[in-house]
Structure formats: C-alpha cells, structure tokens
C-alpha cells in the first residue's frame, strides 16, 4: 500500500493546524476524542447558513427543497462510505452514544428478556457499556464479558463458553479507543449469527480511520460519530439492517417520525424518518457529507496506511523513552493510531499538563474506559492519537515533551536523594 496524499498538503486544508498555543505551533494528538475539520467542512456550514438555511421535509419552497435534497444526499454519501445497501439504513443521531442508546430503547426493550444474555467486552467505552447495564437491569437480563489479555486483545478462546442460545446481542468495539486494538469483528459476527445473536459494532474509532464495509462485516448495527471523522460536532450515525429498522419500535416521538396522528394514537413514517423525530441537525449532517467527500477523496486505504506508518514511527520513538510503559498490541497490522502509555514517577495528568506547555495536546485519564483501567491496574493513562495530518515532527514534539516532564519530575527525584 501507498499513501496517495501528501501530509503537508493535507495540513493546509485544516486552518486550526496553523494556529499557535503559548506561542508554539499546535500539535494536536487527541484525535480519538475528536478530529479537526477541513476548510471544506467549515465552508459547508457557512454556505448552508448564508444560502439555503431552511427546515427540511415538506417545505414547498426553493430553499427548503435545496436543504432537503442536500440533507438526503448526505445520507446517501454516508451510506456509500460504509457500503450500506441503501440510504434508508442510515439514521442520523447526535453521536455514537445516542446511536447505541437508540438500539437499547427501540430494539433492546422488545428483544432482550429476562434471563437473556448480552455479551460485551472489558474494553468497551462507557457508551457501549452503560446502556447495556441499564437494559440488563431493566429486563432482568445477564451481562457477560469477553476478557482482555495482557497485550490488549480480546480473549476469544472464551467466546464459545460465553455465547449461548440465550445470547441476544454481542456489542463490541471495532477498535479500542485506549489500546488501539483492531478486533476481528468479521469472525465475531459469523459466530454470533450461528447462535442467532445480533452484533452491534461500536465503530467510533474505525469508520474515521480505515475502510469499513458493513455488508462484508455483516454486522447488524453499527454506530459512529461524525465529529471524529472531520465532521462537525452534533451528528452521529446508526446503521442497521433494513429489516431490523422496520421491526423496531420508535425511539423518540414527535414531528417527522409520524404518518397519521390521532388524538390518542399514531402510525409511523417509514424508516429512516421513523427514527428522526423533530428538526434534525440539518447543517451538520450536510457538513458531515462534506467530510465524507473529503475522506473519500483522500481514500480510506491511504488514510489507514498513513496512520500505520505514523503509528510505527511513534511506537519506535516512544519505546526509547526510559520508564515508559506502552499498552496495546505489539503487531502493527492489528492496531490503530492510538497509543496509551504511562511514565514512571509522572502521573498522566502531569504529563498532559507539561505537554500542553509545549502546545502538545494529548488526553490523560480513563478515556471513558474505567473497567479497562482496572483490568490493567492503572488509575489513568496518557494517550496520543493520530490522524491524516499527523507528522513525524509532531511525534518528535511529543517525545521531547515527555523528556521535559521527566526533567521536571526527575529534578525532584534527584534533589530528594
């Protein structure tokens, strides 16, 4: 594989990357939390609000028709991006979290009963854990866990013991936002379907960073966030197989999701409208379409390849830092551009604070994965995460920042000897 874009040219498309923090150029390494936005996405927003801002659906005037067409075109773009069989399988929500909660309420309440089982993993983001805790408690169902080994991989030998005829759903992350692990989801889906269980993939960290083909994976539900893939905040996507969407009860009631409303009962619109109650986030959905265009133009194979290269570079450089402990798989091909680490004698908060003084932005904390922190027996980690615009110089700045942290804290160590 080759990278078909020039990272320095790409950087020109992201105005924020030309800014400074504390007088130093911003080094943004928190892409797993949210990505930066290219000018094309910002322009899409401005264009909408200055040219054709109107509510969608049923407005019989020109700018409303334009808004409706652009909104539905964005749905088609997103569908093509993940190779969904049709735009109707794409539901626009706020974020990954809402997508998963939608499945909990609109599918879970009717399909997971007492003593049924839900299988998730120890490496799930809280957003793919808490909704299932709540559903299990509500329905009297059982929540079971795939464990994680020391390298940060799912222990799939346990799979055949954990999955049973009572397993209704396997909800698992495609890529871990802490470890960078890329899970073998195709195999998981195959096994799940043998037992009649459905599979929900948390694709928040995969869709932005690698080619994802929902028909090839054959997952039943897939959730991701626009803001992590160059889109604006406020839009997430739920993909689901069409027959599931048809059979599910509505999630929120209100305008647009209805067909006929009587005083005490109503009938529902067809999917996807059935799940999009009220005025949608029109401008941001259209801008997500622009983000998808931008990513498609780069090519997701190239995006993935660039991230593999920069991750390899970062792993090599970070391994040289004394007293560092890196988490996640050792083999490059099954990991993504996310590196969590801890440093002897310097707490992750203090690492992040000192890096910030060098304009290097990393995240420190539990990364919404408290159970995984417990699994690895750390209160928190520092995490650097990359994207198409990340350069080797930026990785070098990270490493230099870590040395600065060690100097500040090492000094204290010395003095205390």
């Amino acid at each position, binding site marked *: 594989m080759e990278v078909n874009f020039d990272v320095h040219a790409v950087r020109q498309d992201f105005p924020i990357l030309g800014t400074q923090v504390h007088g130093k150029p911003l080094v943004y390494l928190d892409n797993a939390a949210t990505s930066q936005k290219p000018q094309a996405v910002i322009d899409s927003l401005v264009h909408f609000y200055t040219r054709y801002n109107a509510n969608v659906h049923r407005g019989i005037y020109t700018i409303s028709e334009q808004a409706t067409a652009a909104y539905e075109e964005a749905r088609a773009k997103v569908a093509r991006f993940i190779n969904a069989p049709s735009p109707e399988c794409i539901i626009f929500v706020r974020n990954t979290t809402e997508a998963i909660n939608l499945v909990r309420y609109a599918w879970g309440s009717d399909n997971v009963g007492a003593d049924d089982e839900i299988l998730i993993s120890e490496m799930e983001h809280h957003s793919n854990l808490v909704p299932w805790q709540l559903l299990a408690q509500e329905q009297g169902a059982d929540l079971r866990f795939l464990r994680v080994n020391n390298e940060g991989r799912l222990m799939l030998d346990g799979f055949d013991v954990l999955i049973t005829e009572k397993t209704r759903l396997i909800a698992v992350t495609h890529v871990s936002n802490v470890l960078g692990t890329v899970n073998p989801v195709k195999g998981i889906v195959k096994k799940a379907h043998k037992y009649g269980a459905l599979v929900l993939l948390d694709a928040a960290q995969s869709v932005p960073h690698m080619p994802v083909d929902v028909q090839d994976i054959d997952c039943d539900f897939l959730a991701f966030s626009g803001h992590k893939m160059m889109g604006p905040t406020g839009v997430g996507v739920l993909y689901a197989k069409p027959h599931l969407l048809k059979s599910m009860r509505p999630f929120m009631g209100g305008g647009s999701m209805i067909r006929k409303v009587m005083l005490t009962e109503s009938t529902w619109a067809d999917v996807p409208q059935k799940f999009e109650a009220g005025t949608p986030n029109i401008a941001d959905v259209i801008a997500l379409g622009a983000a998808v265009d931008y990513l498609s133009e780069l090519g997701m194979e190239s995006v993935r390849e660039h991230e593999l290269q920069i991750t390899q570079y970062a792993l090599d450089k970070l391994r040289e830092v004394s007293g560092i402990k890196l988490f996640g798989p050792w083999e490059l091909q099954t990991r993504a551009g996310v590196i969590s680490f801890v440093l002897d004698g310097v707490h992750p908060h203090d690492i992040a604070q000192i890096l910030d003084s060098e304009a290097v932005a990393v995240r420190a904390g539990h990364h919404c994965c408290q159970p995984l922190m417990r699994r690895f027996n750390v209160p928190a980690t520092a995490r650097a995460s990359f994207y198409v615009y990340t350069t080797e110089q930026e990785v070098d700045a990270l490493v230099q920042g870590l040395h600065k942290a060690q100097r500040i804290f090492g000094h*204290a160590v010395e003095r205390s000897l």
Partner: protein
Amino acid sequence: MQLNDLYKEIILDHYESPHNRGRPPHADIEAEGSNPLCGDDVEVYVALDGECLKEVHFDGSGCAISLAAASMMTEVLQGKSREEVRQISDQFKAMMHGEDVALPEELEDLESLKGVANFPLRVKCALLPWVTLEHGLANEDAGQRVSIEVE
C-alpha cells in the same frame, strides 16, 4: 501558562517525599475520597485528642497536585482544633477559587498551591484531600470508614 506556577519545587518535593503518608496503626476517623473521572484516590486518617486533630495521615494515588496537597494538608493540620481546621479549609478553598487570601506564616506551604487556581481542571485535584477530610469529620459518628466521590 506558567508551568512554574504549578510545579513549584516545594510541590514536587512533597510529591516525591510526602509527609505523613501511609496508614497509621490507629485512627479515629478514616475517610476515602476518589475522583473517578481522574482516577485519583486519597485516604485520610485522623487520630483525635478531644477537640483537636492529634495526628493526620494520608495514603493513596494521584497526580503531583493531589498528592502534594494531601501531604501539605496533613502537615499544617497536625494538632489543630476542629474550628481551626474549618477556617484553614475555607481559606484554602477560597484560594483555589482564585480569591486573594492572606495565609498566616505557618501555612505558607499551602500558599505554594496558589498557582493551581490558574488551572481550572487541576483545582479539584488540590481539593480532593480537603474534601475527603471534611467528609470524614462530618461523618465522625459513622464509626467506620466513609467514602466520597467528587468530580
């Protein structure tokens, strides 16, 4: 952004060589405070002598700010009356919220944490041991270890 405001030498000293750290053999009050969002955990142990805090210890794990704050807290509170503790605690909190507080000389170590007020996200680190202590004192009657979670 003055990093030196935050990582003063005296703070790093306390972090590296904390005072009164470790669980004492006897304690009248035991309280644990945690900030699950940060992963910081602090335990505070108090031995009483009537109205006075005869000895104060702490243990736990956390960032430089929370551990240094805990270490300093145990130091300045040794032998203080409950009323004095309340006053110092209030002054410290005011300082963390950016108020200009004049601390008496014997509390000058605490003064070194003043810079934390400029780092809003770290304020709760500095406050964690204090909040934990307060919670322990307020629930003295519980007769057992109490715990509190903060954000």
